[in-house]
């Protein structure tokens, strides 16, 4: 990302271009009228006030087209609309990590992600990481190291842990503890979770 898509004065340049279109930006009321047709139409959608959207999203490599209320979180889309119950709702406020999924390979809190923002993106949930009957190395390591008790936080822990390894943050127990701190385990299985991640990391890198 180092400067690739970043003009030295991208914002100013964008405004200057509009400036020309609008005939001067100072006090630039009515610029909307001068926007290209497509943009003006899009802006009008907001003003018109549609409160639902058509969403096209890829989930575990399968395409989905759904009409959603704009208020729906990605977590509720997965669980309530698509029947993917693996992703768990803990706090619903981004504080516990139980809802962790990957969007375009990066871990996020699905409870704080408006589903409408994920159009065109690729989402991976706990249901999408095994290959047929073969568990993901992180799933196998969680079983081997008894890294759970009640299991409610486990899908979020595993999705966070896979990302933690992929980011290069699973190089020591301290590092793992810091970069897994967004996933709370009420049963306190932390020691075994750290052990599972340490053991899965080299296996993931081999695969």
């Amino acid at each position: 990302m180092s400067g690739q898509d970043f003009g030295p004065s991208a914002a100013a340049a964008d405004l200057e271009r509009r400036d020309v279109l609008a005939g001067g930006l100072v006090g630039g009321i009515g610029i909307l009228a001068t926007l290209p047709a497509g943009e003006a139409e899009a802006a009008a959608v907001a003003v018109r006030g549609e409160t639902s959207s058509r969403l096209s999203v890829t989930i575990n490599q399968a395409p989905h087209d759904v009409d959603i209320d704009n208020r729906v979180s990605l977590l509720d889309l997965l669980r309530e609309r698509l029947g993917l119950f693996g992703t768990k709702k803990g706090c619903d406020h981004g504080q516990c990590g139980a809802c962790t999924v990957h969007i375009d390979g990066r871990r996020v809190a699905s409870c704080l992600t408006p589903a409408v923002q994920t159009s065109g993106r690729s989402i991976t949930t706990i249901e999408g990481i095994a290959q047929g009957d073969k568990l993901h190395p992180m799933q196998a390591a969680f079983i081997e190291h008894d890294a759970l008790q009640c299991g409610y936080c486990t899908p979020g822990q595993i999705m966070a842990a896979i990302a933690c390894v992929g980011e290069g943050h699973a190089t020591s127990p301290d590092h793992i503890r810091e970069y897994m701190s967004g996933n709370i385990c009420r049963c306190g299985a932390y020691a075994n979770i750290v052990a599972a991640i340490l053991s899965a990391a080299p296996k993931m890198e081999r695969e």
Partner: protein
Amino acid sequence: MMQPFSYFRPTSLAEAVNSAARVQNARFIGGGTTLFDLMKLDIEVPTTLIDVTAIPGLTGIEAETHQLIIGALARMSDVAAHPIVRDQYPALSESLWKAASQQLRNMATVGGNLLQRTRCPYFRGGEPYRCNKRAPGSGCSAKDGIDRGLALFGGSDACIANYPGDWAIALLAFDAEVEVVGLGGVRRIRVEDLHREPGTTPHIETVLRPGDFISRILVPTTKSARASTYHKIRDRESYAFALTSAAVGVEMDGKRFGDIRIALGGVGAKPIRARAAEALLKGQPYSREIALQAGEAAFSGVRTSPHNAFRVPLGIQTVADAIDIAVKRA
């Protein structure tokens, strides 16, 4: 119950700014980690969300000779891990990776982060608590309540909520500015001037106007940024808001302090620059004693309550420890 809202994803800055200024009670949304959270609590009730993440050209990081330029739509995790930020501005990197969790840092933008709202439990708690920030004129339940984590500096009779962020504290220490695009054009605002003290209008938190969009963050190049740290003390070691924090950068002239920057986090109604502490150190030789004196200067005259008084000695120690860390890096 979250109120229905329309959603719109413009692909240019002009379109975003125009729409935001025209539509009543519209909000920009980037990562949504604050906004969507507060919408679930019915504290933010926008009629329209303008998703700014498709605006091109605002996710990069560029090091020029005299300044570092960070696109406002860059995600916290990416800026924290960027080699130039990590190596040449460690306080900036640390302020980001010591905030939130990696999941939230992957979502949240560095522009939106500056505008995150307070974690005051009476603000977030909704009814029956009174809150002049959430419901202007209703009063402040925090003043007679559990103010353990709230502001030690800059509060008013109307509000003692603290500014919760870390990133703004580190930016403030190094005289950063934000580039703001609005209906009137492009202007720059010092991070120091961006946030307002609550006074009698705690619901007005920044100097931004409707439609204003933070497009870039500009950090002047200084030697003190290289020898810097963001030292953050929390109730637990990770994934918590600051009880006290200090962003410190130093340029040493031999054993004596040359340029020195100190800003305080977690303790103010807005980000705080500790200029008295900076002045006390300037030109003096380093010692642990003088670092503690600087901490005391930073917290002199502060008003406390039985719940939050412990954060004064903690804050003094935090400043002194941050100075020690920065001096070791010089």
